[in-house]
Structure formats: structure tokens, C-alpha cells
């Protein structure tokens, strides 16, 4: 197995660039995620109307939309490799850590694009209050990081199993629970006007979660990836 002397970062960047280019050509995952998110948000907003939704409800709705959109789109990075048959070559040529980091970054990019599109639409549809956007942003960023850190490894696992998409949601949800709990709790406070200082313990939990998940995934990925 030829291994180049390029560093980990440049190898990961190469994996990322390949996926980015593929995504740019077909925009398959991006479309799936965006359409799912917009549709869910529209249905929810339409059903509830403008009747002064409480911060608790707003926060829950937002993260439900984000969670299910992530479930619909984040497994593609690995499933596509398996389906198009390129997985074998990648397995032979690339360093598992580099593959993981590249896939993590592409998932992060996908989720970030979706969040950037969805958040303004969310604030417009629900009239949540534009003054709360600023304290909401750090929670958003940590939430996106947390989501992709936990789901990338699970996506790699299910890509090699049958019933992939259903299994992805079933496997990811228990692992994402602590993240979702902290996110909903923190967002409720931010959207309720209490500011970031009230969410301090949740923010700490979110950072810890992301660190633990990424570290764990890095250590476990090669067992999933290699035959």
C-alpha cells in the first residue's frame, strides 16, 4: 500500500476537495438537505401560524428541523462511495484518519450551508425576534459541529450495512440525545432573551460533546473503514 509523505492535513484536504467537487457537480446531498429543511419548516410554520410561539416551542421546532434534515442528508458522503464503487480504491490508497477528517469537513460544510439558509427563513416564518439572532449564533455553530462530529462515524458504519437510511436515524438518535438536549435548552434561553451568559453550562457541555465525539470517531474510524 503506497503511502505518500504528504501530511495528514493535505491528505484530508484532498478527500474534502474531491467530495466538494462532486457535490458541486450534482448538488445531490445539498439539494436533499435543503429541500427537506425548507419543507419541514414550511409545514410546521404553516400548521402553527403566527400565534406568538413560546421560546421553548421555537427552540424545539428549530432543532427538530435541523436534526431530521441532517438525518436525510449526512449519510450520503459514505453511501455514495459504496454505491459508485470508489470505496475500495479509497480504502487502498488513503490514510483512514485523513478520510475521516475530509468526510467530517464535507459534512460540516453541508450542514453549515443548510443552517445559513434555514436560520433566516426560520426567523422570518416564526417571527422569533431578530434581536436574538446574535446570541443564537454560537449555539448554532456548536450545534452544527456537534451534529456532524457524531454522525460522520455512524454514516461510515451504516454505509457497510443494509437498510442504510433507516438505520442511520436509528443509530444516530441515541448518540445525539445529549447534544439535542443541551441545544434545545440553550436555544430556549437565547430565544427567550436571557442572553448567552445564562446558557454557560450548556455551552460547556456542547464543546465537551464535540471534542469527545471527534476524538472517539478518530480513534474508531479505522476499524470501520478497513476490511
Amino acid at each position, binding site marked *: 500500500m503506497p503511502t505518500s509523505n504528504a501530511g495528514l492535513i493535505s491528505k484530508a484536504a484532498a478527500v474534502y476537495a474531491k467530495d466538494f467537487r462532486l457535490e458541486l457537480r450534482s448538488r445531490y446531498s445539498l439539494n436533499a438537505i435543503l429541500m427537506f429543511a425548507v419543507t419541514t419548516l414550511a409545514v410546521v410554520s404553516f400548521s402553527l401560524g403566527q400565534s406568538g410561539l413560546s421560546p421553548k416551542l421555537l427552540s424545539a421546532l428549530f432543532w427538530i428541523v435541523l436534526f431530521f434534515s441532517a438525518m436525510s442528508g449526512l449519510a450520503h458522503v459514505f453511501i455514495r462511495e459504496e454505491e459508485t464503487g470508489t470505496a475500495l480504491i479509497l480504502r487502498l490508497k488513503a490514510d483512514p484518519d485523513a478520510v475521516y477528517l475530509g468526510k467530517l469537513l464535507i459534512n460540516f460544510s453541508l450542514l453549515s450551508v443548510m443552517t445559513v439558509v434555514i436560520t433566516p427563513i426560520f426567523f422570518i416564518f416564526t417571527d422569533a425576534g431578530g434581536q436574538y439572532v446574535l446570541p443564537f449564533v454560537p449555539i448554532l455553530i456548536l450545534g452544527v459541529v456537534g451534529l456532524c462530529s457524531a454522525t460522520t*462515524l*455512524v454514516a461510515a*458504519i*451504516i454505509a*457497510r*450495512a*443494509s*437498510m442504510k437510511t433507516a*438505520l442511520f436515524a*436509528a*443509530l444516530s*438518535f*441515541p*448518540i445525539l*440525545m*445529549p447534544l439535542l*438536549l*443541551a441545544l434545545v*435548552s440553550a436555544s430556549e434561553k437565547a430565544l427567550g432573551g436571557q442572553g448567552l451568559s445564562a446558557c454557560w*453550562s*450548556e455551552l460547556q*457541555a456542547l464543546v*465537551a*460533546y464535540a471534542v*469527545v*465525539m471527534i476524538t*472517539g*470517531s478518530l480513534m*474508531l474510524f479505522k*476499524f*470501520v473503514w478497513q*476490511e
Partner: protein
Amino acid sequence: MIWKLLIFILMTAVIVLSFTTPAPQQAIGEASRIMYYHVPMAWISVLAFAMSMVYSIQYLRGRQLSYDERALDAARLGFVFCVLAAISGSVFARVAWGSFWNWDPRETSIFVLLLIYGAYFALRGAVEEEDRRAALTAVYSIFAFLTVPFLVFVMPRIMPSLHPADSVVDATISITMGPTVGLILLASLVLFTSLFLWVFYIAVRIRRLQRSDLKKED
């Protein structure tokens, strides 16, 4: 043999005592006796999952299928105890706090543990080849276990909790309850754990017999 006898006698004693001694929490009355059974069940579900994780780690290092089988057996038993913990907890919640399910942090963690077990079995069913199945489920088991510290330690600090132990630091378990209660609880914990390990040991022996049967057929 002596251990089995000892477990039987002590278990009988504990069960009798759990019903004959005064109820642990007078405010709730007789229903607080559930605590003697609910706490061990919950503890064993986490213990079983931890065991499954350890066997998973050993499988990933040595690639011996016997470790994978043990991880599965531990998970199966743990699942049973997890269901029992959830049901006993739910009954207690109805009597003590008014409704069957409140999404209190500990209730949430037992529910998540249930889901993790379910997901583990779903993953096992979805992969055909033995080696790949063992490797994938081992990785999932280890990865899922990383969330347990968050659920057990971090969540009760973030969200308001109904469980009595969370409002008092765990070290003071002998202060918040009378010594008899603490003793019976501890005995129940130890004995149920022994029961779990005994059943697990039987499962390991069954596997060994099955394997030697297969060898004889060759």
C-alpha cells in the same frame, strides 16, 4: 456451588426484608420500596453496557469472535434489565411524581440506553458477514458508550431533576437514608449484580459448548 446457595439465601433475605422493614420514604409510603429493585436494575443496565463495550474493545484488538459473542450476550442481558428499570421507574414516577414519564434527566438516560440497545440489535441484524458485523457493532458499542458520561453526569447538572439522588451529592447516600435502608439497598445491588454475572457466565458456557459441538462435527 456454594456461591449459588449463598446468592439464593441472601436474595431471599433481601426480598423479605425489602417488604418487612419500614418503607424508605415515608412521604410516598409503601411504593418507595420499588427503589430496592429499580436502582439495581438501572445500575446493571449500565454495567452490562460497559461490559459489552469492554468485550467490543477486546474484539477489535484480537479479532476473536468469542469476544464478539460475549459482547452480544452482555447486551442481551443488559437489555432485559434496562426494560425492567424503565418500567419500574415509570411505575414509581406515577406514584411519586404524578405521571408515568416526565423526561427527567435520569428517565431520559434510561430511555436513551434502551434506544442504544435497540440500535445495537438493529445493526447486528443488518450486517450479514460475521467479521464485518462484529467489527461494526463493536465500534458502535464503544462510540455509544461515550455518551453515557454525558447522560449520567452532565445532564442532571443542566436540567432540573426529579430524582432524589441528584439533589444530594451521591456520597451522602448514608445520610439521606437510614442505615437499614442503605444496607438493604446495597445488599440488593450486590446480589442482583451477582445474579446478572451468574446468568452471563451461563451464557458464556453455552457458547463454549456450542463451539466444542461444532468442532466435534468437523
